[in-house]
């Protein structure tokens, strides 16, 4: 995208009918590290890649709990994301206080989208994947800086998200009926896609779940590492250490799935992953 004379102000249209500032804001989302979301009928899983600036620093927080039944993953300007999640939390808590009931996700995303339409402010440079439950079931929405929002079965945003999207496109038809464990496994696989060959470790990714009867919570590092090991999807640079845990329904499926798709089996003689 080239600089032009119509892009200084968010209130200026270009002759082609575009608002360049908004489009530039959407570019900011593509610069952020990847975040993915997927849902079944009863659960929604959010995941993101969390790279720290250096080994000395802590990770950027990209997944926020908004209420017991809603959570959000962000990509882009995390500061804007923090401000918006604070707004969402405040909306949820006010609704809860007046009606003693959880705010339906669909209404929250509309309020969020409307917030983007302020002509005197720069657009928020963050894309939000909003995951939540209401009386109609599980929902996953994507709110973009333009003020548009869409509902998705599965989606990925941020840098190298195309790889994750390709993986999700292949599998999304089954997600509706997936179990919670399968959904988490798919999320981890999708995250791995965006890593382009790096090992998937719990120290560089975050996973969060919300479901019927299960309030939104971020899985802690050990749980995630155990899941990675049990699904045997760590990657190819180093095979998963020791024997995998009792994998439940994930284990054999992971082997079968991993072997057919990526050729990264748990045993010796690993083949290089083709991305």
């Amino acid at each position, binding site marked *: 995208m080239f600089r032009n004379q119509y892009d200084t102000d968010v209130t200026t249209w270009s002759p082609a009918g575009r608002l360049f500032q908004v489009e530039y804001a959407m570019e900011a989302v593509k610069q952020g590290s990847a975040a993915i979301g997927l849902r079944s009928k009863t659960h929604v899983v959010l995941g993101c890649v969390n790279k720290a600036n250096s080994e000395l620093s802590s990770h950027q927080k990209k997944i926020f709990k908004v209420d017991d039944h809603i959570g959000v993953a962000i990509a882009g300007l995390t500061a804007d994301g923090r401000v918006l999640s604070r707004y969402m939390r405040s909306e949820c808590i006010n609704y809860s206080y007046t*009606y*003693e*009931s959880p705010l339906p996700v669909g209404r929250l995303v509309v309020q969020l989208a409307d917030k983007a339409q302020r002509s005197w402010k720069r657009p928020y440079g963050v894309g939000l994947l909003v995951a939540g439950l209401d009386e*109609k079931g599980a929902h996953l929405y994507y709110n973009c800086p333009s003020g548009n929002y869409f509902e998705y079965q599965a989606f990925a945003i941020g840098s190298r998200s195309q790889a994750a999207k390709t993986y999700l496109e292949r599998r999304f038809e089954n997600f509706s009926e997936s179990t919670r464990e399968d959904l988490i496994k798919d999320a981890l696989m999708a995250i791995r896609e965006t890593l382009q060959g790096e090992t998937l470790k719990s120290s560089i990714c975050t996973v969060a779940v919300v479901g019927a009867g299960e309030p939104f919570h971020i899985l802690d590092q050990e749980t995630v590492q155990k899941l990675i090991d049990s699904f045997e999807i760590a990657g190819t640079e180093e095979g998963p250490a020791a024997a995998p845990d009792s994998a439940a329904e994930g284990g054999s499926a992971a082997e079968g799935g991993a072997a057919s798709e990526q050729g990264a089996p748990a045993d010796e003689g690993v083949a290089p992953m083709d991305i």
Partner: protein
Amino acid sequence: MTRDIDCAWAGPWTWVGCLNKSSGKSRQAQAPTIVMFLVQQDTDTGLLFLFRNLTEFLSLGEHSSLNFITQLMESIQAKQGLVGPNDPIQRTQLPYVTGTSVVALKYKDGILMAADMGGSYGSTIRYKSVERIKPIGKHSLLGASGEISDFQELLRNLDELILYDNMWDDGNSLGPKELHSYLTRVMYNRRNKFDPLWNSLVLGGVKNGQKYLGMVSMIGVNFEDSHVATGFGNHLARPILRDEWHENLSYEDGVKLLEKCMRVLLYRDRSAVNKLQIAKITEEGTTISQPYALKTFWGFTAFQNPTAGAEGSW
């Protein structure tokens, strides 16, 4: 010469002042002189009496004019509803047209609610076709006792709320629990401003198979129960319900139980009228019955010859 100064009080703006220049004799025999004065809080100036009617005289006896004014000022201030210029701001109200009890209970398929159709103006039963139970949205019924105009104001408010809820058009809707919580907030916040909505509300409904029945008072006290009542219903109907209510009442049994409560209220509550509606709400929807009257029995022997023991009385 004694001067009897009479004044009368029969409600706001019905002051009567009479200055009687003659003494002693029975007031009815004198032709009263009506005098108008100007009312001020400081007692330097005189008093204003608005002439409405000449009933219920109250004598202040012999006083000098200053004392008379002072005493009258105090009696003015003691009357509710009138506020002088130096008083702190307050918006406490009095209820004017009021409805009496509402009784409601949970039964097998939903909620049953009953209320009579009377609107009393003090001790007069002024209006006899007041609908005190209304459906709200798809899932709830609201019944109110207390000031009818405040109930109508609430209905307007809820109308707007339900409208906005419908405008989302997203498959979600406000259920009875949400409305109950909302009404509690409204009532409590009004009470905090010393400007209450003078009602006791009963909110019942069914959503997704869940039955809900709750009450909110005018000061914001709220709770949920299997059977609730307002006003006199608390004292007369709830003991009956505590004894005879049980889970999974059939519709007929529920109606019978409610009618039993309403009959007791009819006999014993002076502001009850014998014209009531029973409303039912289930998962399918709301029905409010046509108004009807309860059968009453007055043929007790004690009523047959009431003056038997005291001739000349009535």
